[in-house]
């Protein structure tokens, strides 16, 4: 199998070492258990001066940023959340490798004040490895709500390292954290960590320490747990526990009868908001671009540019970019922040919890539900997210099936096709319902494909599954929405320029280069026509899917470009223009249905393929990940075509 622990770890080390200093600024590493608000602290410190991932929140790869304090620049690295230091999963290895070889000037361990005891276990383990530790007890505001008090100065005395209390969600204590980091980096702060290995009098354990680090020995693990228990009892008046309110929410959200209907309703609401919200900005953008396009055309004529240059620039590049942005940006920029919000609420792990039983029946891991949800945002992010799955076999199942759920780049096309052909007389709620139906279909196919892989090429027994269900946290709605909206807008715009512009160029070329008495495009479409017919579509649509390989957002604009002859139909905007073009090309419900199905199930985009190759380091599995969804799509389309 291509996905061995060995090459995962080699990659992990490379990744860990990537974030060496650029200009010799001090390096600060941020670590801690998952769900302790590490990323919030990171955002607080860096104030958006960072590389944001495609899927915010869940840190699966190392994020790096900078902050300036008192005129000095610090580089800060957000390590993946881990429970342990004994690198058995890829992300734990990243964290340990970083501690050992990254030579951070300072390690900040973030703890959850409502669950201090468990968090201290890791603090004690990290103290075995390094002196330069700052313990940051976060979520103090939440602890206060649960009537938990923590004696920070006592904890500092008992641990022998600086302890800072913060509530990152409102910024309390972050300034103090920065000044402590500064003191530690400049050597004004001497730590004498009270290590468990030094406190233990047991001779047999001492001999164990000589050979390896104490924390690595399985037999020694209970010592850390006992010490953490002892410390927590000294400094805090109890753990958060499980409030009656949380229990009530969980009973409804993950209850026997209510869990799946609520999941479906949640999808419905998210889609409905996306569909309704996207209409208006979409047509506004289209009008704006039409106006700019007309103006540029006049300018081009006035400057008497040669016909081919006009064609490449305006009919090729500009028209494609404008379509991608106008049609695809608004739904993407609305859907993505909504999903981020669900993640921040602590809802996604509960989906994994509810669906785990079904996944285990398919020989897969419940955490696949999480990577699947990330896939709704972006399949490439979903594939990277599969790292949270420990077993190599289950991880591979999750990677190969990830592209079976529609990503953010495919939703706008699905919405448009459903609106035009399937729900034209029933309005937005019906569109949302149908879209949710298609998403449920994609999830069902994911289960079926996982089961098939489990029974054929990836046989094996399901392994163990442990998942923490984080407490429900009220996300900072405004900030999350604005930030991920801006992120997404920026991301789509960047991609539109990088991917759509070259695609527009290629598109113009193939539609203008002559082969015999026809154009290259029609010639290619002619070759694909029989295949397209069998699948209930046409050669043009298949060609668009192939040309749209760089990005799924391109496919529908390309179809419209080819069928509409690249001309902008004045007076009609958004869905109306698309409807006219598609109706004129003779599309019916069957064509639309087959196209929708093929949208759901076809090869992953180039970025995702590349990511799969990077994650599996295997051409074989990358080809499998292309073959699997394509086979599903072809079979379904042919089936629909034969039945209707």
């Amino acid at each position, binding site marked *: 199998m291509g996905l061995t622990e060995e090459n995962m770890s080699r990659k992990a080390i490379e990744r860990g070492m990537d974030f060496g200093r650029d200009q010799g600024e001090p390096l600060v590493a941020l670590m801690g258990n998952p769900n302790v608000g590490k990323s919030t602290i990171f955002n607080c410190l860096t104030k958006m001066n960072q590389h944001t991932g495609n899927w915010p929140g869940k840190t699966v790869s190392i994020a790096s940023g900078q902050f300036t304090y008192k005129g000095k620049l610090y580089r800060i690295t957000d390590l993946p959340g881990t*429970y*342990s230091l*004994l690198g*058995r999963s890829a992300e734990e290895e990243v964290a340990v490798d970083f501690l050992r070889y990254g030579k951070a000037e300072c390690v900040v361990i973030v703890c959850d004040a*409502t*669950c*201090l*005891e*468990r968090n201290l*276990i*890791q603090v004690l383990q990290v103290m075995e490895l390094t002196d330069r530790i700052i313990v940051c007890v976060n979520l103090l505001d939440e602890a206060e709500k649960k009537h938990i008090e923590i004696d920070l100065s006592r904890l500092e005395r008992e641990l022998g390292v600086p302890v800072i209390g913060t509530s990152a969600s409102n910024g309390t204590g972050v300034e103090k954290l920065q000044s402590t980091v500064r003191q530690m980096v400049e050597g004004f702060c001497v730590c004498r960590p009270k290590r468990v290995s030094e406190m233990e009098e047991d001779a047999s354990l001492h001999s164990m320490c000589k050979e390896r680090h104490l924390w690595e020995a*399985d037999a020694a*693990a*209970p010592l850390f*747990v*006992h010490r*953490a*228990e*002892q410390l927590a009892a000294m400094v805090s008046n109890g*753990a*958060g*526990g*499980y409030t009656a309110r949380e*229990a009530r929410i*969980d*009973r409804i959200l*993950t*209850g*026997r*009868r209510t*869990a*799946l209907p609520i999941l479906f309703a949640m999808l419905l609401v998210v889609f409905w908001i996306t569909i309704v919200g996207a209409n208006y900005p979409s047509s506004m953008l289209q009008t704006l671009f039409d106006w700019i396009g007309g103006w540029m055309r006049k300018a081009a004529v006035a400057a008497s540019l040669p016909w081919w240059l006009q064609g490449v620039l305006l009919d090729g590049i500009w028209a494609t970019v404008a379509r991608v942005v106008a049609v695809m940006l608004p739904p993407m920029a609305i859907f993505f922040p909504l999903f981020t919000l669900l993640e921040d609420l602590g809802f996604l792990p509960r989906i994994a*919890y*509810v669906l*785990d*039983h*079904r996944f*285990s029946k398919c020989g897969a891991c*419940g955490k696949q539900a999480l990577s699947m949800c990330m896939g709704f945002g972006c399949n490439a992010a979903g594939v990277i997210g599969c790292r949270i799955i*420990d077993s190599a076999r289950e991880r591979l199942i999750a990677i190969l099936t990830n592209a079976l759920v529609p990503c953010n780049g495919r939703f706008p096309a699905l919405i448009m096709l459903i609106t035009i052909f399937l729900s034209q007389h029933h309005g937005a709620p019906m569109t949302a319902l149908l879209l949710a139906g298609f998403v449920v279909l994609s999830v069902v196919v994911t289960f079926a494909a996982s089961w098939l892989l489990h029974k054929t090429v990836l046989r094996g027994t399901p*392994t*163990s*599954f*442990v*998942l*923490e*269900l*984080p*407490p429900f946290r009220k996300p900072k709605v405004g900030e999350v929405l604005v930030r991920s909206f801006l992120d997404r807008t920026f991301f789509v715009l960047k991609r539109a320029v990088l991917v759509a512009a070259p695609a527009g160029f290629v598109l113009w070329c193939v539609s203008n280069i002559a082969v015999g008495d026809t154009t290259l495009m029609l010639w290619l479409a002619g070759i694909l026509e029989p295949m397209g017919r069998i699948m209930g579509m046409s050669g043009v649509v298949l060609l668009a899917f192939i040309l749209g390989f760089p990005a799924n957002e391109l496919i529908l604009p390309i179809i419209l470009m080819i069928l509409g002859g690249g001309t902008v139909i004045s007076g009609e905007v958004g869905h109306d223009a698309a409807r006219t073009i598609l109706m004129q090309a003779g599309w019916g419900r069957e064509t639309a249905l087959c196209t929708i199905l093929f949208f759901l199930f076809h090869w992953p985009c180039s970025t995702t393929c590349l990511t799969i190759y990077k994650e599996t380091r295997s051409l074989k599995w990358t080809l499998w990940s292309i073959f699997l969804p394509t086979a599903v799509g072809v079979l379904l389309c042919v089936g629909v075509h034969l039945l209707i």
Partner: protein
Amino acid sequence: MKQYVGMDELQIGEEGVVHRIELCGTFQRRIQDLGLIHGTTVQCIHQSPCGDPIAYLIRGAIIAMRNSDAKHIIVQVGGELCGPDRREYESKSN
């Protein structure tokens, strides 16, 4: 009355103290890092729709575990809920 059962057999709301962990390797280490060792109190708090996995309250955090794993963690229910090892350790360190 003391009784020893698999952790998956705890009723919702019922507490138990870990008596023995019949697991080894990675998984044992993983649950140790969550603070689940001999003498730890666990409480079953919730069942997922299919009754598997089950969510437990362990040291203030909610942890979901499959029944096939949880049955290897033997807990003591009833009687005085305090692990002997823990008392011993506390008396030693005080």
